[in-house]
């Protein structure tokens, strides 16, 4: 009896140690991140772009779809600081409104990929055996398919394109890397003492997974997810640029760059450069923040 009580106490203590360890990991990472100028700058850019996506009227009172044709292709001026496009639409307003598509695609795709990847990775890592073999093999096969080429095949089939078809393509093709990472960290934590202790006390599989194992898989998954956000912003723009992502009259940086590019030779480089700068800054911010997070969360790399 006493023995049992003791083991309950010690298992509880070691479980607590596991949780505290991950709590201090996050606290350390947070302290570390605040000291990195690159991380702060990236976070600022992400907040700004997100506010453009959520509340574009904070940034501009002009309607990007209100296009007086007589103003076609005006170069930047006080009234239209980014100039206008060939239809006379205010280019600054378009650039601001263009953030929404990118952010929505990136956020929803990443959430779905996180969900699918985490479920598959946890199942493969936790149950092992044939479940692991089947799921890992499946992930390998998806890995063998270059991401953009797969999306190209799927989207070129569709007649109508929207944010959601793009999200669907990204989610279907994007989960394997996350599944691999989650699987690896589940495998690593599964045999740690505090998890074994909890298991020996008869904790249910679900409790083991969500209370003990998942918190440890969270750090690498979040790093990858941050970088994925940037990748998806870039991929959406690329597909829209190719003409199989979003399509006019939707507003997207990729479409703006595609259309702006055809006027580059005739002396309107601003139609290319403004959306290109916004797009690049957004992608760069996500990727740099991901890198900084990785450094902050992995003390070994310091």
């Amino acid at each position: 009896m006493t023995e049992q009580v003791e083991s309950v106490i010690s298992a509880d203590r070691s479980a607590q140690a596991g949780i505290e360890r991950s709590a201090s990991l996050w606290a350390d990472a947070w302290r570390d991140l605040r000291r990195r100028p690159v991380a702060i700058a990236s976070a600022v850019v992400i907040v700004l772009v997100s506010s453009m996506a959520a509340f574009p009227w904070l940034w501009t009172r002009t309607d990007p779809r209100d296009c007086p044709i007589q103003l076609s292709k005006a170069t930047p001026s006080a009234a239209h600081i980014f100039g206008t496009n060939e239809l006379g639409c205010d280019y600054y307003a378009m650039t601001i409104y263009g953030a929404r598509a990118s952010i929505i695609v990136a956020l929803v795709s990443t959430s779905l990929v996180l969900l699918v990847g985490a479920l598959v990775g946890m199942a493969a890592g936790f149950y092992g055996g044939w479940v692991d073999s089947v799921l890992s093999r499946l992930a390998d096969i998806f890995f063998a398919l270059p991401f953009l080429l797969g999306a190209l095949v799927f989207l070129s089939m569709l007649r109508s394109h929207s944010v959601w078809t793009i999200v669907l393509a990204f989610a279907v093709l994007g989960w394997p890397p996350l599944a691999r990472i989650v699987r690896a960290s589940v495998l690593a934590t599964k045999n740690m003492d505090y998890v074994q202790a909890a298991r020996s006390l008869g904790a249910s599989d679900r409790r083991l997974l969500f209370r003990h194992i998942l918190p440890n898989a969270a750090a690498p998954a979040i790093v990858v997810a941050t970088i994925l956000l940037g990748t998806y912003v870039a991929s959406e723009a690329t597909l829209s640029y190719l003409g199989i992502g979003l399509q006019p009259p939707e507003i997207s940086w990729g479409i703006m760059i595609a259309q702006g590019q055809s006027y580059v030779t005739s002396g309107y480089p601003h139609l290319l450069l403004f959306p290109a700068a916004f797009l690049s800054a957004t992608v760069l911010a996500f990727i740099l923040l991901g890198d900084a997070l990785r450094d902050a969360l992995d003390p070994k790399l310091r």
Partner: protein
Amino acid sequence: MGGPGAGGLKGLEVTPLGRYLARRLLQFVPTLLGALFILHYLMTVGIQLNGDPARAVFGDRTPSQSQLQAMQRVFGTDDPCFEQAGNPCLTVFVHRLENMAQGDFGVDSRERPVVTLIAEHAPITARLALLAILIELLVGVTAGVLAGLRGGSFWDYVVKVSTTMLVAIPIFVVGAVTQLVLGVEFGSWLKGVGAPDLLTGLFSIAYRTDQPWASLVMPAFVLASLSLATTARLTRTSLMENLRGDYVRTATAKGLTRNRVVGVHALRNSLIPVITNLGISFGNLLAGAVVTEGIFNIRGIGGLVFGAVATGEAATVVSVVTILVLVYLLCNLIIDVLYAVLDPRIRLD
């Protein structure tokens, strides 16, 4: 004490390298079939959702029932399974595999075989890809070595910042901006001052048939940019790690020159991850070729896909991409073999 080495048993023994190759080949078949099936399924779901490549060919016109059925037969999408959402259309897949095994990858809307289209467009893409891989290796490895030899130095910083930019900025932006700055602005200035043909070819806004190599250099740099950055970073980190390695110290203790210690002992090991990464970067090259060839108006395989996407030739897109994936998987197989030759340790397990 003298453990049984590789030369211990003679006769029927298969060499470790041979065993490794056999295993890789065995893994290759299911991967290949799996990837082809995913492509097929993506297409099937696309059609079932709301698309039909046959209908897309007619654009805004509404085809007659017989016209449509004829086009569906051409594309092989006349099977009723394409009307049933969720049906994987396995019989169609098997049929396609049989056709592929005989070298038949379907036709475009004008009923030209896709294989013929590919054969026409392949040479220029091969030249572009070759240039891009050369640039990736030469520039990427050199930059990585410069940065890795002295971590924290000025060069290290330059390489770090520029590779981060290249990784983050989408290739079509790199391409469009390069075309604007080097092609439109600098290129027209060069023409204005009457520079020689080779030079204007190097900075041309589009592919020029009279300069079949020079006018591909700039697109190749654009195409290589992403892989170049990853190659430089990989070389840098693995060189820095290997320079701290015990065996590098041993090589120094043997009285070898610094050049030989770095160039032969450390670099040889540092290039192993770079070679492995070539497989992944080849996938990026193929996807990037679609964008790059579109921007610089290069009529290669990428340009073929770019054009087919623009005109709604979905069947051509699927067929060409299928062939690209085949090529990609084959290249990865070759790189795996190369990896085993480079790193003797891999052959054992």
